[in-house]
Every structure is written in C-alpha cells, then in structure tokens.
C-alpha cells in the first residue's frame, strides 16, 4: 500500500518553520562556536522573529487574494485569525528577547539556550493559535508548556525559580491531562478530532444522532485545561506563585505569549469548532469571567509584591478577555456573528505589549534591588529613574484602562461587544472590577512617584536593550491609544476562519 502524504504549502508554513529553524540554529551554532559577542544572541532572536513576521505579513496578503484555507491535510488553519495572533506573539517575543538580554548578560545563564527555548515556546504558541485539529493544538500546547517549564526554572541561582518551574510543571501537566481527556471525549462524541470534520458533523447530523453527553463532558474538560492555561478563576492558583518565582523576563513571556496562545486556542475550540453548543459553554464562560474579574482584582489589591500584583491583575485581565469571548458566544457560528472575536484578539495583542513592558520595568528594579520586587523596592523610583517611572506609569494607566492608552482601546472593545450583545450585567461587573483594579495600579504609582527613596538605595542600571524594549512598548501603548483605527480596521477580517 502506497502511503500518500498530504500536500504541503511550504510558503504558508514558512512563519512557523522560520521559528523552528531559528531555534535549532541557535542551539547548534551556539554549541559549536565560542562565546558570542554581547547582545548578538538577542538580536539574532529578534531577527528570526522579524523574518517570521515578514513571512506572516506576506501570508496575510496572500489570504486577502485566495481566502482562508487549511494546510497539511486540514491539520492547520491558514487564516488571518492565526496570523494576527502570531504577529502579536512575534512582537512580544522580540521584546522579551531584548529584555532577556538585559537580564542575562554577564551572568552564568547567558547563552543561546534561553533564546532557543523562547523561540520554541513561541512556535508552540503560534501552532496553538493556528491549529485546525485538536491533536495539533495539543502538540502546540505541549511545545509551549515544556519550553516554559524549563524557562521558569532557568534561573539556577535562585531556589524560587526552581520552585516556580516545579509548580508549573506539576500543575501544568495536570491541566494538559484534562485537555487531552477532553479531546478524547469529544472524539467519542463526534468521531473526529479535526475541527473541520467536527463542524461538518454538527451541520449534517441531526441532534438525535449525536452523543451529546460525551461532547458536553469533552467541552467541560477542554475548558478546564484551557482555563488553567489562561489562569481564570478558579484555575488560577498557580499563577501568582509561578509569576513571582520565575525570572521576570520569563514571566513577561508567560503573561503575553502564553496567555494569548491559550485564549486563541479557546476561541478555536469554542467559537470555531463548537458554535453549536454555544448555549452550553457560554454560561460557563460567564461564570469564569465574573469570578476572574472580581477575585483577580480584589486579591491583587492586598498583595505587597509587584510581580504578584501583576499576576493577579493578569487574572483580572483574563476575566476581561473572557467577557469578550462570552460576547462572541451569543451569535457564534452565524453569518453575522458580531465582532467579539476581533475584540478579544485586539485585547490579546495590546495586553501582550503592555505586560511585557510592565515586567520589563520589574526586571530592572529587581536587578537593582537584589531580586526584590516588593512594593518598597519601587519606592521613589521616580527620583532615581524618572524616565523608567514615566514608562511604568504609562503601563499602569493603560492596565487601569485610562483613555489615550492602548489598554482603554482594548477594554472599550470587549465591553462594547458585551453591551452590543446585551450582556449588561457582565459589562457593569467588569467595569466595577476595573475600578478595584485601578486602586492596585494607583498603589504602585504612589510608591513610584510619591514615596521617597529608601536610604542608601542605589540607582538602578537600565540595560540598553531592556530600555529599548520598554521604550518601544510604551510608545506602542500610547500610539495605539491615540490612534487605534488602523489596528481595528486591520483586525476586521480575523473572524473569517479556515475550517
């Protein structure tokens, strides 16, 4: 019997292949050559992501001509949904690489391994967003997660980092098992793991022929797995510990790229594959959203460590994104499905930039204070590093959703969708949670601006590349806040999925 491989559109896959190739090259060349000149690894990583981004942009145009298709025998989706998320992830990865250089340079961990792992993790994340087959999605998830477990534990000098990696590994493995079991049950109910085929089954089979109990159980387990990855309440308990313990540059990656990948996967599973069960999963999303919003922002307020605060605030942001998914769930699968998915993707991309900037500032402060990221380490930052303080303020105001920042555009987008779908209750809860969250950001700002530097505080050294990355992130935050129209019109076509 002759085995016929599926047709492969190499060009459409090139953004992913570039990333894999870049990771392999860094590993192999890095191992074979002597120590690289300063900053070269970071810039190589940035170059790889840039090359991948250029290819993704070409593919984006390509889709404009030929429409969304599937790749490799329907395993991957070639649509603007995937590419939009991928471009956001590539940007965030490049910023994280720059921050990583500032964090590692001169230390014993400096070397190509960390960067190779970052590229690998980003590839996994991109594959998750582009998966049109649940098994491929799982592969992407594992590629991302395994790289992240190692990255979280990568700071060998600190036991906190190892503890963080271990926690993430054990709980993440647990969540992956849920996810896999969910796929199995869904397969039992629909006789396929391909999103295209699942959708087709629902369209052609009458309800009586489907095994809905298995499908629903499968959806529930998939939701648990994904809710863990996006750290939605009540599956969030790992995130403060892991965020705090992991090196700040890795935390920035988790909170931006990792979160975006999990949310993109959630949209693929719920909105693209299972719109027929939207009335079943939407209430669950509602509960997750409200719980994340309220508990995330309330617990954030009582923290004393800035990284932990940002961890809880990222739980609250996950709640906001879930509000968008809830809105997208009202008319999922219909011809006029609303723009909930667009709002969610815009939120993911903008939040990714914001959070990398915020943790970037945290890396600088932590380095200047022996790894201390408590609120008191930030005290008087404005007198020591005024420009850094301004950047941090921009990020915090944006996270609080103050107008003329990208955070406001992101929040306005999801709330707009919720209100358009008449989910008034969740919209009001979200806005009130944002007020609680604002108190948290004010607390950090008070520390930065209004408290004096402690006696004998040394002025933090800002590594050039970290400063550059923070500057870019702040610039994007303000620019999108003032002129969001281009991003919104660019993202209009993301809800034309391939399946």
């Amino acid at each position, binding site marked *: 019997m002759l085995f016929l491989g599926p047709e492969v559109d190499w060009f459409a896959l090139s953004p992913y292949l570039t990333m894999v190739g870049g990771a392999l090259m860094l590993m192999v060349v890095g191992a074979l050559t002597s120590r690289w000149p300063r900053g070269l690894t970071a810039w190589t990583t940035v170059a790889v992501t840039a090359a991948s981004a250029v290819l993704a942009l070409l593919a984006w145009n390509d889709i404009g001509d030929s429409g969304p298709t599937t790749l490799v025998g329907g395993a991957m989706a070639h649509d603007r949904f995937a590419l939009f998320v991928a471009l956001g992830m590539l940007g965030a990865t490049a910023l994280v690489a720059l921050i990583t250089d500032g964090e590692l340079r001169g230390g014993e961990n400096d070397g190509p391994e960390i960067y190779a792992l970052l590229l690998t993790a980003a590839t996994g994340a991109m594959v998750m967003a582009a998966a049109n087959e649940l098994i491929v999605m799982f592969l992407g998830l594992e590629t991302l997660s395994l790289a992240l477990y190692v990255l979280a534990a990568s700071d060998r000098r600190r036991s906190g980092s190892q503890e963080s990696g271990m926690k993430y590994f054990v709980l993440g493995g647990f969540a992956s098992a849920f996810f896999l079991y969910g796929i199995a049950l869904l397969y039992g109910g629909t006789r396929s793991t391909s999103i295209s085929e699942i959708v087709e089954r629902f369209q052609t089979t009458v309800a009586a022929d489907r095994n809905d109990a298995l499908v629903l159980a499968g959806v529930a387990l998939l939701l648990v797995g994904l809710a863990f990855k996006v750290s939605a309440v009540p599956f969030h308990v790992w995130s403060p510990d892991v965020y705090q313990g992991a090196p700040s540059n890795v935390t920035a990656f988790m909170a931006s790229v990792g979160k975006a990948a999990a949310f993109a996967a959630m949209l693929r599973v719920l909105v693209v594959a299972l719109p027929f069960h939207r009335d079943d999963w939407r209430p669950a999303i509602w509960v997750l959203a409200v719980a994340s919003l309220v508990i995330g922002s309330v617990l954030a307020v009582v923290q004393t460590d800035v990284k932990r605060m940002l961890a809880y605030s990222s739980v609250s942001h996950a709640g906001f994104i879930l509000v968008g998914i809830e809105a997208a769930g009202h008319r999922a699968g219909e011809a006029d499905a609303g723009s909930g998915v667009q709002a969610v993707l815009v939120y993911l991309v903008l939040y990714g930039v914001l959070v990398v900037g915020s943790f970037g500032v945290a890396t600088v402060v932590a380095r200047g204070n022996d790894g201390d990221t408590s609120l008191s380490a930030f005290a008087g930052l404005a007198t020591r590093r005024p420009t850094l303080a301004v950047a941090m303020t921009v990020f915090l105001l944006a996270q609080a959703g103050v*107008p003329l920042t990208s955070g406001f555009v992101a929040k306005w987008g999801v709330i707009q969708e919720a209100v358009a779908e008449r989910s008034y209750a969740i919209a009001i809860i979200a806005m009130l949670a944002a*007020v609680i969250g604002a108190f948290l950001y004010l607390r950090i700002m008070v520390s930065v*601006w209004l408290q004096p530097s402690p006696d004998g505080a040394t002025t933090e050294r800002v590594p050039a590349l970290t400063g550059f990355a923070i500057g870019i992130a702040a610039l994007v935050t303000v620019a999108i806040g003032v002129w*969001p129209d281009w991003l919104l019109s660019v993202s209009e076509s993301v809800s034309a999925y391939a399946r």
Partner: protein
Amino acid sequence: MVAAMTSAVAFPLLTTLIFLPAAGALVVAMLSSRRPEYMKMTALLASVATGAVSIWALRNFDAHSGGFQFTSQHPWIESWGISWHLGMDGISLFLVVLTGVLFPLAIVGIDPHNDDPARDKPYFAWLLLLEAGVMGSFLSLDLFLFFVFFEIVLVPMYFLIGGWGYEGRVYAATKFFLYTMVGSAFMLVSILATVFIARANGLGRVTFDLIELAEGASFAASTGRWLFMGFAIAFAVKVPVFPVHTWLPDAHTQAPTAGSVVLAGVMLKLGTYGFLRFGLYLFPEAARWSRSLWLTLAVIGIIYGAIAATMQKDLKRLVAYSSVAHLGFIVLGTFAFTSQAITGSVMQMVNHGVSTGALFLMVGMIYERRHTRQISDLRGIQHVAPVFAAAFTLVMLSSIGVPGLNGFVGEYLILIGSFLTARWWVVVAATGVILAALYLLWAYQRVFHGEPDEDNRAFPELRWREAMTLLPFLGIIVFTGVYPKPMLERIEPAVDALIEHVSDRTGYVEPQPVAVVVDDGHEEGE
C-alpha cells in the same frame, strides 16, 4: 493624531483650545529640570495663549444663535463610528472662557509649596494637561470623545493632589480617583448601550455623535430611564450630589491651592454641565421623570452643605462644604426645567467658579503666611491686612449672593425660575441662602475681627502679585453682578433650544413666568 493634524490646517478654534495647553504640557515636560524659572514662564505662556483664544471665541460668538458654533468634525476611529466632533453653544461658552481665564490665574497666583524647585516641572505639566482635558470635556459633541476627556482629567488631578497636596494627600487623591471612576464605569456601559440601542431604534448605524443620537434616536421610556441613570451616576459623583459627595471635602482640603481652584472652579462643573448636555439633551423623558429625586437631593445638598460648613474648624474645608451647597442650587435650577432656572444654573456655574476659586486662592494665601488653616488659630487679620480683608469681604459677599454682585444674579434666577415648577423645594432651598450668610459671616468674624494675637500681628498685607491675581476675579464679580445682560443673552438662546428639545420629546409645556425685573432694570423673561 491624524484628526488633529488635518484639523490644524484650517485653524479650528476649538481644537486649538485643547491642543495649545496639551502642547504646553509637552514643552514643559521636555524642559531641563535645572532651569525651574523657565517652566513657570512656559506654563503661563501656554495658559495665557489658551485664555486669549477662549476670549477671542467669546468675542466672535454669535449671541443670537442657540445652536453649536465653531464646530469642527473629523473622523477619528471610523471602525467604531467615533469622530473628533467639537462645538460650543451658550451653555459651554462661559465655562470654556472660565477655564481659559482661571488656569493662568491659578498658575501665576500661587506657587506649589515644595522644597525642591525641580519638582515644579511635573506640577506645571499636569496643570496644563488638566486644562486640555477640561476644555475637551466642555467642547466634545461625541460621547466617546467626551468620555475620554472626562476620564483623562482624573490623572493630572490625581497627581496634583497626590504630589503637591497636604498631609492626607495620598488618601484624598485615591479616594477622588476611585469615586469618580465608579461613576464613569456606569457611564461607559450606558454610553455603549445608548449607541447600540439607538442603532436598533431609528439610527440604523453605530455612531457616538451626540447630536445625531439626540435628534435621531428614540428610546422607550423604561430604556431611556436606565440609560439616563447610568450617565447620572457619573455626573452626580462629579458634581457632587448629596450622598456621593464625601470625596469632595477631602480632595479640596488636601489639594494644592491651584488644584483646589481648578477643582472647584471648573472640574465640578463637568458634572452639572454633563447633566445639561448629556442628561437632559439625550434623555429628556427620563430627566423629567426623575426630577423629584434630583430636586430633593439638591435641596438636601444645599441644607446639608451649609450646616456642615458652619461646623468646620478648617477654613478650606468650610469652603469645600460651601461648594456642596452651591452646587445644590445649580442642580436645583437644572431640574426645574424652566428657561430662567437653567439660565441661572449655567450662570451660577461660572459664578461659583469665580467666587469659590477666589476664596480658595485667598485661603491658600492665608496658609502661605501662617501655615495653618484652622479658624481658631487666626484672629484680627482685618487690623493688620485691611486690603486683604476687603478683597476677602467682596469675594465672600459674592459667594453669599448679595445683590449687586454676581452670585446674586445666578441664585436669584434659579430660585425664581424654579418657583413655578418646584415650589416647595425652592422654599426649603431659600433658607440655604440665609445659612450661607451664617457660615461665611461667622467665619469672617472669627478670622478677621477681634484683636490680633502675637502670631497674627505679623500677617503680611496683600502683595502686588497677589493683588494682580485677585483683580480679575473681583472685576468679574462686580461686572457680572451689575451688568449681567451680555452674559445672559448669550446663554439664553442655547437654554431655550434645550427646553424646546425637551418639549418636543416629552410634550412638556414650560410654564410662562410673569415679567420680573432684575436689579439693573433689564427685563427678563417673556
């Protein structure tokens, strides 16, 4: 950004009013910290230029038109139906001029008290940014744009109170920020709901344009009421109306003097202005329906504010509570739904800005001299600083509402205009006028009368710079009090247009007042 650039080509007046102070803030922020003397000059220059543009707008304002003038409209976020739409009518005109005049005075009148002159830089930058935000709020004719400005003013004010305020500043600044933000949360959802419900009821598309929404959309009574309440919560917090006023005394007392002047002078008016522009105009039915609630809260505010002011030991807190009472009058006039009362309200917004702004300025001067605001620490200042006392007396009498000064015209119009539609509320509110005389005169007596003791004997007289700062305030107080006609005839057409809009939508018929005579002999009313 693009909207700003394209609109700058044709010299749009109102856009300039917003961008001039914003650009000034940017320039101040980029100046070297080592030359603090340039900062004040730059800030002053930017704010004086803005003030000049606002006065130029006043000169070119067509007094006989009730519609929006100097409008400019440019697409901003087209995907969401949002445009950079500015316009000015008789209701916003004087608030804009007040903003333009008050900021340079606040900048020149009193310096931030801090030991490090390098810290002046953010102070002036924040003040100018605040001016841009306030201007934007008064000029926006797009719900999104209004919300952006309404929210953005919180940030500079937060930093002004938190950075240059007095002992309890961080608490007061945070309280101020969070209170206002809770209100805004409801308004944001309400704005979005308004837009989407309007799309389904008459408009057929998503637009945030105020005029299109108000003229084109119709809401079912119950829907309109919910939407109105969402807006009203935000405005009530900002005004502040009685049960949600508690942020105000803290914020006012802790803010630096310039902050208090601006807060009382123009920022509180964002609330009362919002009620008129967005409450009554967008949801006339709901505003009519809920008027008893607002009238009652307004009257409670008048009485409560006055009684609380009487009991204060801190001079600044006293003025703060008097604001609660004064703004009660403005809300009373707004929800009386007569042309006279609303005209009086608009006028009183300006009057309160002038007189309370001046009061805060003078309390700040007292603090600079004596480093205390406690009434019990001050005595007999009249003997050592008679000019200062005279200026204080004039401002105080204006605040009480003595005939011949500006406060009287506004309060009188509100009371007489409201009498036709809200008789019993007015009866109670009128006692507030007497209480105002009580708390202010009593405070004056304790601070300025009597024999000065050891500490107060060295109280310096009014300096030239201070006198020059106060002079415009005193001039406006006397001029508007004696000759309010130019102001009233510019406000009235816009107010009449608003009342007409309410009548069209709700079938409400404005009761016609009998002719009344204002003190200058000018005939008011029909």
